[in-house]
């Protein structure tokens, strides 16, 4: 049992460690995934910045080319397009300023761009103005001098720088993203491994338990089979005993009757022919046969007690004891009154088999009367009872011949007697029956005595459930 508990504890601690590790792995995987998402966001952001830079580049090229188209054609529609592109570019610059707020280098670039775009716008304005006011030749001269183109190239140069910075960032962020992807993959592999190991451990434990359980089950079945066999052989033994006691009751009684019968017939027919000694011998033969008959009857009664089924019900002990005393009085052979009448105090009721408990009282009271008879008029018998803490206790106390406590353990054995048949007749089964009945009720018997100073026989019965 203790080893089972130890195994249980070990399995529990292993499982707990495993679950903790699994939990940590899950949390880590979650955190890394979150981080990876952020990194991916940054990569997208960098792409967005680069797209904006490209748009700005296109805007510059278009504004420049529209300004040239106006210089050539003088068509004011081109001028409107140029102005829209310039406005667009300024919008892109604002966007870039906002997007690169976390990056000092790019912010510096944006500031430079703002200045350059300001100058460039003025130069574009100069060309347009020259065309509007002075005509094609003046504008063509400015174009020829690359008045606006130089400013454009300066802007494009800065945009190239910005693009290069973003390109580097993109590379960094993508490699970071790649690194995270690897870590997360490794984590998930580890997680899977953990789960697998955990399942294996749990599986092996369950298998072991199952094997233990199956083994225990097998042993139990084995024990049950053994028990069945033993029960069967016990039942056979009981049947044998029953048939034995049947034949004892029938077969042993008959020859005894014949012994007493023929002894009596002899006594009837030929008393004159026999001398005193022979007559005494005949009486001894008859008495011995009678005693053996009593022994057989008592032994059979005792063995029947073991087989009789118990019929537990509430018993009015007071009434029962009084009726037993009345019965003992009326059953006396000589018809004489009892030499001593037992004094019965208030007895608590009990639960038991009335017929069996009655036999207990018959035996105890008969004994008390028998063994206190030598006291004559001085004889006293008291019957008392009390209920306490789940038990009811009954006692029969007499002031008779008593017994030596050294032999107390023999009192309740079958055929155990502390007196010779000459002193007191009896078979030595009465107290054995008392013991067996009380024990079958789940109770206890007790005897206290002192030679020539009486004896007290008590029995206790449980108040609650009686067992057979």
């Amino acid at each position: 049992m203790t080893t089972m508990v130890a195994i249980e504890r070990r399995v529990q601690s292993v499982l707990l460690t495993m679950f903790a590790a699994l939990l940590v792995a899950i949390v880590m995987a979650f955190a890394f995934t979150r981080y990876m998402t952020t990194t991916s966001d940054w990569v997208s952001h960098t792409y967005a910045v680069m797209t904006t830079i490209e748009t700005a580049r296109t805007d510059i090229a278009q504004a420049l080319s529209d300004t040239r188209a106006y210089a050539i054609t003088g068509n004011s529609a081109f001028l409107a397009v140029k102005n829209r592109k310039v406005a667009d570019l300024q919008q892109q610059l604002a966007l870039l300023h906002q997007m690169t707020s976390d990056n000092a280098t790019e912010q510096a670039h944006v500031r430079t761009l703002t200045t350059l775009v300001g100058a460039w716008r003025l130069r574009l304005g100069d060309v347009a103005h020259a065309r509007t006011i002075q005509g094609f030749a003046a504008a063509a001269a400015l174009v020829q001098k690359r008045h606006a183109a130089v400013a454009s190239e300066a802007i494009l140069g800065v945009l190239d720088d910005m693009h290069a910075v973003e390109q580097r960032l993109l590379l960094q962020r993508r490699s970071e993203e790649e690194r995270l992807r690897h870590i997360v993959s490794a984590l998930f592999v580890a997680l899977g491994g953990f789960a697998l190991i955990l399942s294996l451990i749990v599986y092996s434990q369950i298998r072991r338990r199952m094997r233990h359980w199956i083994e225990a089950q097998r042993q139990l079945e084995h024990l049950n089979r053994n028990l069945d066999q033993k029960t069967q052989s016990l039942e056979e033994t009981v049947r044998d005993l029953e048939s034995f006691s049947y034949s004892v009751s029938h077969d042993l009684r008959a020859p005894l009757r014949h012994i007493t019968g023929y002894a009596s017939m002899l006594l009837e027919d030929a008393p004159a022919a026999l001398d005193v000694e022979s007559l005494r011998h005949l009486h001894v033969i008859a008495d011995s046969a009678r005693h053996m008959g009593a022994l057989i009857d008592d032994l059979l009664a005792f063995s029947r007690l073991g087989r009789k089924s118990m019929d537990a019900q509430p018993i009015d002990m007071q009434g029962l004891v009084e009726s037993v005393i009345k019965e003992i009085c009326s059953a006396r052979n000589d018809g004489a009154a009892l030499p001593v009448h037992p004094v019965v105090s208030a007895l608590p009721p009990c639960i038991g088999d009335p017929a069996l408990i009655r036999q207990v009282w018959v035996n105890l009271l008969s004994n008390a009367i028998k063994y206190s008879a030598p006291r004559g008029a001085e004889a006293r018998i008291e019957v008392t009872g009390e209920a306490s803490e789940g038990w009811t206790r009954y006692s029969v106390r007499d002031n008779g011949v008593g017994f030596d406590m050294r032999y107390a353990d023999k009192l309740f054995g079958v055929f155990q007697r502390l007196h010779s048949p000459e002193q007191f007749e009896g078979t030595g089964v009465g107290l054995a029956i008392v013991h067996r009945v009380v024990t079958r009720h789940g109770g206890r018997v007790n005897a206290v005595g002192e030679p020539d100073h009486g004896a007290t026989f008590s029995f206790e019965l449980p108040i609650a459930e009686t067992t057979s």
Partner: protein
Amino acid sequence: MNDYQSVEILLVEDSHADAEMTQRTLKRRGIVNDIAWVRDGVEALDYLRCEGSFAGRKNGNPRLVLLDLKMPRMDGLQVLKAMREDARTQWVPVVMMTSSREEGDLLMSYALGVNSYIVKPVDFEQFADTVAQVGMYWVLANQTPAQAR
């Protein structure tokens, strides 16, 4: 006594000693003189049906059958059963005289319609008194219907 009755008591008893003690008691105490003794169930039925070695006997039932329980060949319960199933012996009083006080034997006897069940006392005085009482009651005091005779 009655002309149509051959005997007053049919004693069915395998034990010679018990039979002798019973007969002696009934005769000595002047209750019944006319006792037929058979040693087992087969002889008892032969006697009652006037068959076998009793083919020549005078017809008529005894006033009482004293039946032992345990006997060779056919036991007391079988005899009782056969008697109760036969219209001729259906009403003849049967008293079991046995050493067995087993509840099963008692139940079976009463189920088969025994009139009385006596456990033979071990003590001879008591045995003799009991036998005398049974004889006195069933042969002298008890009345049986005409069909029983």
